[in-house]
């Protein structure tokens, strides 16, 4: 039998005490490790509740110099990998049709004047049957910007032919319910010609007209609180229809395909080149008969359904993190009910969405409901809307930015109808001008939920679609990096009060590290003591065995085995003690917020056992090779 094992057996108190010494040190180390491991995870969870965001400042010159296009701008591509950037949220704006719902219309919210731009290409689309009663031709000069032969843009004056056509309304064919309270008796159109530059109307004839309701004519009045309130301008309420918006100009047409064409006599015409969307069609008998005819099929099958499609439409913002949107950063967008989209849902591209409180309220949608969403590719334009001023007029010199998207068109359907779960209802200003704003018909969906082709052409005109998520607490460092490149001041930073919590989080992290260090140091000292005591106590046995002629390698092996068994026993007891102590303490006093780190703790115990055995091995080597002749 191994003489050292026998020694341990014969000296049970020594064996127990040394094993206990090592067990205590192991328990200490395991608890320190568990605390460090748990706190690290806990702090990571807390930190993930904070998002530090850099939002572009649209007025910053530095921002414009950042080459804000999809190819060059991203901060994290291989060529321009910025430090401290976690990821960029390059958002995509798409159109969406939501089955069995109605969009929120500005007029319902008493928003008038240039607020009509929010509805222009969706809720305000309409088709009416009307009789042309009067046409007045117009000829004017206008200044346009055009590139010369060398490609340099220059201003030149051109002659433009135009007209004003008045119609009396015979039948409303398609009109959003929200506008139906305001009787439409006459409509005025103007300016747009057929593709061959011919005047599309003749007096006395009947036409189907397609366009957008301009908005309800209104004036301001003052109530008893001297608050300005809008009042319907009854005198003009019946005359409110236009074919195309002045913003629907060549190169940026959203509804039709408007082009400026030079006519025979050095004059220009604005013509509709769209093959699929005519803005008028003459009919002779009844509207119904015309719609049933071959000529009317485009109206019956495309235009009228398209109008109805757009009454249930909205914008979808595909995002990787709604918290990085300025409104949410500032706090004026917030989750009113339910929750925000989780990180797992963003990563998995889950079919979940956030809807606005106004839209949810209008459609009776609650958190947990599922909505049918059909996605459409839509061009988006950031246009300057004249600011409404007091007397029912817009002041063209004062403009505010509004982001408008083209109507949903069947040919632009990007994805089949899919069900999305409403996980949260957010509150936000319903219709607010500004480059960073989204209207009440906006849905936020994880970017990965739509896997089709995405285009972010609108990024250069809408700074609200871009932000950078940086590591918490690193905004200063990030700004310094940008500053070095001459882009300082391009971003504003929001950390959701992480700065205030940072000290406490750091302190918690440092404390867990301290506990771990204390555990390790104590363990090292305890192992040193253990080895010293063992070697000191068994020294006589070693010398005795060696003097009796036992080979040093045999002594080494036997010593190593016996002490290793003792060491492993101590470490196993210590690991179990640490596990039980830590978990019983944390479970009873701290509930389940601190995770049970069983596997890491077992790993820690294994490592400690291995370290101790290695130390024992070296110790046994040393003790077995001691010089027998020259001992003190």
């Amino acid at each position, binding site marked *: 039998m191994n003489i050292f094992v026998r020694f341990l057996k014969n000296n049970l108190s020594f064996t127990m*005490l040394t094993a206990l010494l090592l067990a205590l040190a192991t328990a200490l180390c395991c608890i320190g490790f568990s605390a460090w491991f748990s706190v690290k995870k806990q702090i990571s969870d807390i930190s993930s509740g904070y998002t530090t965001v850099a939002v572009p400042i649209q007025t910053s010159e530095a921002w414009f110099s950042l080459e804000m296009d999809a190819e060059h701008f991203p901060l994290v591509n291989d060529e321009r990998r910025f430090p401290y950037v976690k990821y960029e949220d390059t958002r995509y704006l798409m159109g969406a049709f939501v089955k069995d719902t109605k969009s929120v219309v500005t007029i319902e919210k008493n928003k008038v004047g240039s607020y009509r731009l929010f509805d222009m290409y969706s809720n305000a689309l309409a088709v009416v049957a009307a009789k042309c009663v009067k046409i007045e031709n117009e000829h004017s000069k206008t200044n346009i910007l055009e590139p010369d032969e060398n490609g340099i843009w220059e201003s030149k004056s051109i002659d433009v032919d135009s007209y004003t056509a008045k119609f009396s309304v015979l039948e409303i064919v398609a009109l959003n319910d929200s506008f139906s309270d305001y009787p439409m008796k006459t409509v005025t159109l103007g300016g747009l010609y057929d593709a061959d530059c011919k005047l599309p109307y003749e007096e006395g004839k009947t036409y189907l007209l397609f366009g957008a309701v301009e908005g309800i004519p209104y004036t301001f009045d003052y109530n008893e609180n001297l608050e300005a309130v809008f009042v319907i301008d009854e005198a003009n309420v019946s005359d409110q229809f236009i074919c195309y918006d002045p913003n629907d100009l060549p190169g940026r047409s959203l509804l039709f395909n408007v082009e400026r064409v030079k006519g025979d006599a050095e004059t220009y015409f604005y013509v509709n080149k769209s093959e699929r969307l005519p803005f008028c069609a003459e009919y002779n008998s009844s509207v119904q008969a015309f719609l049933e005819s071959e000529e009317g099929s485009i109206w019956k099958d495309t235009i009228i359904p398209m109008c109805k499609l757009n009454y249930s439409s909205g914008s979808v913002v595909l995002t990787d993190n709604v918290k990085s949107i300025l409104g949410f950063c500032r706090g004026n967008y917030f989750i009113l009910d339910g929750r925000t989209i989780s990180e797992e849902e963003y990563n998995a591209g889950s079919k979940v969405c956030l809807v606005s409180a106004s839209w949810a309220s209008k459609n009776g949608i609650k958190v947990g409901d599922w909505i049918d969403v059909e996605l459409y590719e839509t061009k988006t334009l950031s246009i300057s809307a004249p*600011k409404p001023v007091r007397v029912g007029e817009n002041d063209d010199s004062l403009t505010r930015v509004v982001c408008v998207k083209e109507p949903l068109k069947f040919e632009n359907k990007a994805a089949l109808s899919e069900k999305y779960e409403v996980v949260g209802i957010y509150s936000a*200003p319903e219709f607010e001008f500004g480059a960073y704003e989204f209207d009440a018909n906006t849905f936020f969906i994880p970017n990965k939920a739509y896997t089709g082709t995405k285009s972010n052409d609108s990024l250069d005109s809408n700074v609200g679609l871009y932000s950078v998520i940086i590591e918490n607490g690193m905004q200063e460092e990030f700004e310094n990096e940008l500053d070095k490149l001459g882009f300082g001041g391009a971003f504003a930073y929001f950390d959701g009060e992480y700065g205030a919590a940072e000290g406490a989080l750091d302190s918690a992290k440092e404390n867990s590290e301290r*506990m771990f260090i204390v555990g390790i140091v104590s363990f090292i000292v305890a192992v040193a*003591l253990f080895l*010293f005591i063992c070697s000191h106590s068994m020294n006589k046995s070693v010398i005795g065995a060696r003097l009796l002629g036992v080979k040093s390698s045999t002594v080494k092996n036997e010593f190593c085995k016996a002490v290793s068994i003792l060491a492993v026993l101590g470490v196993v007891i210590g690991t179990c003690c640490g596990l039980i102590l830590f978990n019983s303490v944390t479970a009873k006093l701290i509930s389940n917020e601190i995770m049970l780190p069983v596997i890491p703790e077992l790993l820690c115990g294994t490592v400690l056992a291995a370290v101790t055995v290695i130390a024992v091995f070296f110790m046994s080597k040393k003790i077995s090779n001691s010089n027998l002749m020259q001992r003190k």
Partner: protein
Amino acid sequence: MSAVLKISLSLLWRRRTQSILLIALVALIVAVSFYLSGIAYYEETAIEKMINSTDINCIVTDARGMNSSKLSMSSVLVQSILGVFEDDDNRISEFVKDVHAMGVVFLTYPDGMEMHRIYDFASDKMLCEFEGAKIELFDGFTEDIFKTSEQVCIVSDSVEPEYDTENNPVISIGLERKKTQLRIVGTISNSESNVIYVPLNFQWEKDASELFLVDSCTFTIKDNNRLEEAKNEIYKLFAKPDLLNGYDSKPFAVVVQDDTYLESLDGLRSNLRMVRVLIPILTVLTVAIGFFASYLFTKGRIKEFAVQRCLGLKRRRVFFDIIGQQTLLAVIGYIIGLLVAVITKSIHDIYSIPNTLLLLAIFISGASCSAFMIAKVNPIILMKTED
């Protein structure tokens, strides 16, 4: 130096490896004890700092929480928040700070002008850096003037001012029958030219008390330690936003944006609780290691004490010799541990020193137990003991 002390020292010197290890052990126990006692203190201080420095935003919305920008809310509510109308039932102003509020008035004169009542520059989104507005106040005026009810304003730098009798720049404004002249105290560039910014509590007639409408209002909680109390006060006057709310009793609601703060605070407090519970455990384990080490070391010298007993030393003498030697090592270790704690700035208060002295006593008691057991046994038996 007495002969006994000399012998003790020479004994300790002969066992210097053992002595150094024991000194190191005591030093470690003492340093760890100081180190651990500081942990909770620092974390508690950091959490307290977080509580005091976190701004919890509160946003006034309509009762359903759907809108926060065009509220048309009576100025009475904002003045309650500001503490103008404080009474026993309404102590909301005690609990809030950094109030931002604004209201828009469409003036009849000059035609097309808007008057924005603001409590400070942060009250109006159009004055923030994103919109590129740059405000320049004239000498002698600060932003605080917007917290008064003075008849002053700031206007776009493109506005041509009039001048009063004292040659101060002024602008005349009117709303229906009301007319007054405002002193211009600053200008704004890169902003809308048809907006005049006046103090929130601006009155058309001096010393009059007029009601007006406020479009938006936000504020922060003054003392986060009294968050619940503050919320109770807020919800006396305002509703909690809910899509099912009516507009009858409380037409306006307040969203208290404290979710992240509370989650973090809960997490950090649970962490602190864990630290507080683990510290005594870690300390006890450290001390237990010291106790057993001390005991084992002393027990290892059993032959030596047996010889001393055979040479005629009394039990008590042997016992006190052992205690003396261990105490000497422990005191040296304690001093080293204390120095380490001072160097690493682990001592946060003087009250932790008695605790470490107690640990020292526990360590010495380990040796005492061993010494007591050795001293009371017959020396012949001691000599025969194998270990």
